[in-house]
């Protein structure tokens, strides 16, 4: 269920759900209000005839086929509501993965099932302290010990619990708002790579420790072999060797670091952006090199330039010039400056 256009799909889904809910609320206002916004201040419209307990003493016993049916319908509506709210969350979970990251099918299925289970539990427990204590006892006897691969998965699990709670206390409106806001915030942070450190290796997380050690500016570059053996398969060793070959070729044989910053451009028009940005780099950097173009689906593509910025042009000036020159072509531009100390004297050659 991954999508090339996750935002459009989300908007379309919520619009369709809103229309269906509006139609249902028109025909069944009481039922929809009961599961969507119980206890939020609204009151049912129109007079209603109260039961006289003296005329029909049996009414104090409220258990019967009608009440069973009522509870069943309510429960089904709550579970459907929870499912409807959690489905787009699973889509976002599957779509908004970091580059190359794979989603975990177990987590997807858990996300679908968990809110329904939570809703069922809360629906049963609400208003009963005794049941709540019993539930705590039962849950205490069953231990869940699952390590999630990605810490972000935990947030999705929390969200599914929130949706389940909202459904259980018959306040699906609250669950809907939380789910909608969560989905859009997550999609936007993913789309714009919010908080990404561009100098961090984009390789799998298990590579990061040896790579960090190798890239250490303290010149203590000794990476124990055992670390590499523990973290890398032969295929990954080859891939890493290829990357280092590429880095070696890019850097050359000189002793000093050739580049001190990375210019990160996001754009939907890669060739045009290159045409607009590269003249600025010619003018404002000592040297630059096109490092990588990452073509993304569902969000803007990325261009990475290795640069050595001239001292006379601070970072902000470079960014302003890039924005001015490539106005309308690029979505965003950012410069990440490395901590590599600049040696005495500098290269004059252009990249």
């Amino acid at each position, binding site marked *: 269920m991954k999508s090339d256009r996750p935002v459009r799909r989300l908007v379309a889904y919520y619009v369709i759900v809103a229309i269906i809910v509006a139609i249902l609320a028109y025909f069944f206002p009481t039922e929809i209000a009961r599961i969507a916004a119980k206890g*939020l201040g*609204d009151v049912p*419209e129109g*007079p*209603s*005839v109260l039961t006289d*307990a*003296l005329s029909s003493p049996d009414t104090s016993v409220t258990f019967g086929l009608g009440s069973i049916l009522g509870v069943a319908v309510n429960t089904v509506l709550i579970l459907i509501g929870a499912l409807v709210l959690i489905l787009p969350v699973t889509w976002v979970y599957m779509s908004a993965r970091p580059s190359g990251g794979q989603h975990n099918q177990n987590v997807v299925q858990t996300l679908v099932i968990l809110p329904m289970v939570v809703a069922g539990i809360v629906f049963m427990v609400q208003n009963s302290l005794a049941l709540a204590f019993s539930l705590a006892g039962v849950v205490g006897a069953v231990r869940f010990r699952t390590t999630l691969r990605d810490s972000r998965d935990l947030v999705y699990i929390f969200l599914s619990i929130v949706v389940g709670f909202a459904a259980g206390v018959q306040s699906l409106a609250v669950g809907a708002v939380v789910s909608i806001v969560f989905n859009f915030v997550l999609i936007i942070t993913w789309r714009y790579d919010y908080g990404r450190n561009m100098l961090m290796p984009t390789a799998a997380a298990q590579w990061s420790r040896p790579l960090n050690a190798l890239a250490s500016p303290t010149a203590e570059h000794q990476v124990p072999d055992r670390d590499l053996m523990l973290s890398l398969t032969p295929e990954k060793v080859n891939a890493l060797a290829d990357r280092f070959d590429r880095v070696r070729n890019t850097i050359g044989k000189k002793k000093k670091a050739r580049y001190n910053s990375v210019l990160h451009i996001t754009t939907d028009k890669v060739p045009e952006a290159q045409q607009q940005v590269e003249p600025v780099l010619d003018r404002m950097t000592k040297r630059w090199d096109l490092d990588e173009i990452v073509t993304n689906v569902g969000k803007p593509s990325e261009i990475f330039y290795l640069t050595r910025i001239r001292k006379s042009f601070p970072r902000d000036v470079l960014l302003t010039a890039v924005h001015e020159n490539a106005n309308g072509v690029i979505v965003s531009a950012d410069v990440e400056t490395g901590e590599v100390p600049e040696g005495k004297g500098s290269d004059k050659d252009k990249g």
Partner: protein
Amino acid sequence: MNRTRSFVLLAGLSPWVAGCRDTPQAKAREAQAVEATRKQELARRLAAADANPEKPAAVAEWLMPPELREISGLTLTSRGTVLTHDDNVARIYEVDPKTGILLKGFSLEGGVRGDFEAITTAGPDVYLLESKGKFYKFKEGADAAQVPYATFETKLGNVCEFESLVYEADSTRLVMACKKIRGKNAPHEVLIYRFPMPLDRATMSTLTVPIEDISGSTKWKDFHVSDITIDPFTKNYVMISSREKGILVLTPDGDVVRSGPLPGDHRQPEGIAITKDSLLLISDEVNGRPAAITVYRWRP
């Protein structure tokens, strides 16, 4: 083609589904149909109760809908109906105690939440009281409306927990009895605060009655007032206690007129009102039995 078929099917089903809807008009028709019968039945039961005054028995017990399962205070309107409210959300309902018809419901703007314990009408205004002594003043709203409100803080929340409120029309003051006096060495007494209109903390006065004067033949060590009302005939304060399951009648000067057990079987009485045609109304929160307003013949 499939889409057209779906639209035709939906259009065909719509009137049928709409007809099944619990519309306000359908509910009004149902209420109108039972109104006359219920009035007759109540008159018959009242006649039976009047014929046997030694044995106080309920003449009606109206079971509350789910939204009033935590029914709290009661107050009379000028129309002879009662206003009651939910304990946790500021939603007010109007009930006709003679026919058992829930006439309307409205709420304070924004669905205010709190621990609402008592309600009273003072002319065109309605006052709702929170247990910590905060008043919400508003006008009665139309059915399903949300009404604006103003608040007044008595700042008595650290002294008392309140569950009762009534408007004393003769002296134009709000009267509220303390359910529980806070503090370890709190005296065992009934403590009543009176706020003349317009509300001002500076003009507030108190009335205290020691428990020894009240208990009489009962074994009460305290009297936790759940609600208070004013007898329209004697102008005495009539109070009930959920914990003691008792009723207490005091004069406005603090003299004990009567104290004793409540009639009937009340699991959690939370509200009391007395109508001008001598009906005693007691509201009970859900507690092993459905929430209800029970109607008795009132004999001062």
